[in-house]
């Protein structure tokens, strides 16, 4: 059963200039859905629009069957939709613990401390650095903090925008292994990635986005060897049958 459903979404940063042009995707429970595509395909804009950071001018976003298209960005996390941006995804002048506390602010006060402690158990590296300014963390640690911060409210769906960007191959492996663990816990993950090989290795299904809409959908494991992927990246085929 699909938890997240996006139907014919149209979105953009300026009136009359759509970046996302009728994209439709879905994600089922405990599924990792990978969104790939060439530069400028609208991948980041699509998940930012779903998260409420880009203006939606058409289409629908449903979470558990509830229409959240017009729900403001700050209320989407309360509905169960978490988003980790590609860059600037932590508050650098706050400590690690404060970064988690500010995200836990939407929980009842009685649960806040317990949830932060739970996250520190899941992310022991962060626990050791709880008093450090987040801006002093390494790239991998920042990404871990961003993911931990998104998970603290126990969302239904976690969307990540290029979590491997700027990380070494070893760190990419660590981050993606963490995402697999998170999926094992029953969370649905929507992953926008440029690192197609690494993302497809952990994904269940994949979409290839071209010019603001999905051009192909299929099983993630077989897509890497499918010639359609290269074709769509190179722009030779616009729409798969």
């Amino acid at each position: 059963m699909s938890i997240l459903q996006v139907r014919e979404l149209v979105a953009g940063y300026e009136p009359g200039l759509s970046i996302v042009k009728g994209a439709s995707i879905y994600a089922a429970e405990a599924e990792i859905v990978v969104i790939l595509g060439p530069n400028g395909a609208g991948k980041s804009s699509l998940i930012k629009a779903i998260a409420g950071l880009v203006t939606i001018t058409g289409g629908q976003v449903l979470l558990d069957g509830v229409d959240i298209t017009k729900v403001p960005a700050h209320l989407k996390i309360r509905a169960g939709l978490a988003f980790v941006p590609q860059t600037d995804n932590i508050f650098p002048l706050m400590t690690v613990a404060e970064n988690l506390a500010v995200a836990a602010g939407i929980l009842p006060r009685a649960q806040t401390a317990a949830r932060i402690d739970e996250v520190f158990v899941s992310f022991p590296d962060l626990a050791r650095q709880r008093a450090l300014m987040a801006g002093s963390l390494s790239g991998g640690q920042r990404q871990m903090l961003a993911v931990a911060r998104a998970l603290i409210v126990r969302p239904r769906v976690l969307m990540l925008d290029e979590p491997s960007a700027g990380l070494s191959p070893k760190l990419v492996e660590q981050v993606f292994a963490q995402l697999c663990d998170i999926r094992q816990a029953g969370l649905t993950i929507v992953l926008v990635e440029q690192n197609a090989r690494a993302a497809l290795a952990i994904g269940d299904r994949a979409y290839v986005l071209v010019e603001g809409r999905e051009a192909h959908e299929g099983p993630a494991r077989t897509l890497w060897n499918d010639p359609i992927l290269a074709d769509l990246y190179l722009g030779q085929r616009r729409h798969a049958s």
Partner: protein
Amino acid sequence: MTLQFLLDGLIAGSMIGLGAIGVTLTYSILRFSNFAHGDFMAWGAYAALAVVGVLGGSTPMGPLSFGLPLLLAMVAAMGLTALLALALDALLFARLRARGQSIIVVMASFGASMALRSLLEFLFTSQPTYFSRAIQMAQPVGFGMRITADQGALLILTLVLVTGMHLFVQRSRRGREMRAYSQNPALAQVVGIDVAAVVRATWVIGAALACASGVMVGVLVQIRPLMGLDLLLPIFAAAILGGIGSVPGAVLGGLIIGLSEAAAVQFVGAEWRAAVAFVILMAVLLVRPMGLFGVAER
């Protein structure tokens, strides 16, 4: 040589620092320089004066020139000034902020400043007025320095307000949200922070502290429609010197400006007092634009 200028500078710096907190918060969270902030001080002082009048005057308490009614009036005036700031935001600034051009908002704050000042002159005339006309005797406190009871009380009030404000920003949930929003507005929304609530808190805190500062000026000096305009440059200099976004920085900046002005009066001449804030502002912008506690833009 007398060290009285240190005490005078500390007192002036307290009032400047309280005003600078609002400026620094508005700039770091709402992303614009609010030139109407000084007028919140004047409106706050006049609001307190009006409330004291309704309460039937302020009978002096001990050695002070004011009593409990003025303190109650100040609390009420802080609320009224906060309402004024919220109304101004709803009617003017919020609409212009939505267009995303901060320079338009800055220019609008100039206009709002002139309108607020003119309205005060219309309502209360441009003649100075006072909370009390009683003359206080300054008491010696050592090293050749003297202080009046009012000055001592207002220094304590400043300490209480600044400490409370610091604890609020550092420890409270709303304070954390304000800091988070000032660092990254988009991410703040993603983590569930209600932007409208943060904006309201910023106006309420800034305006309330501006009012407290205005009442202090009114108690120690006089109340005039132009009192906020006179303090605008020192307040901005203090906010920039301390580092935009830093509450302790704004207070420290205020104390440095106040002490520098007092030192200029003592050692150079009273006519140079107003130039000091300008010189410090220029020096900070040239040497360390991010200020004492500020962080360079990434």
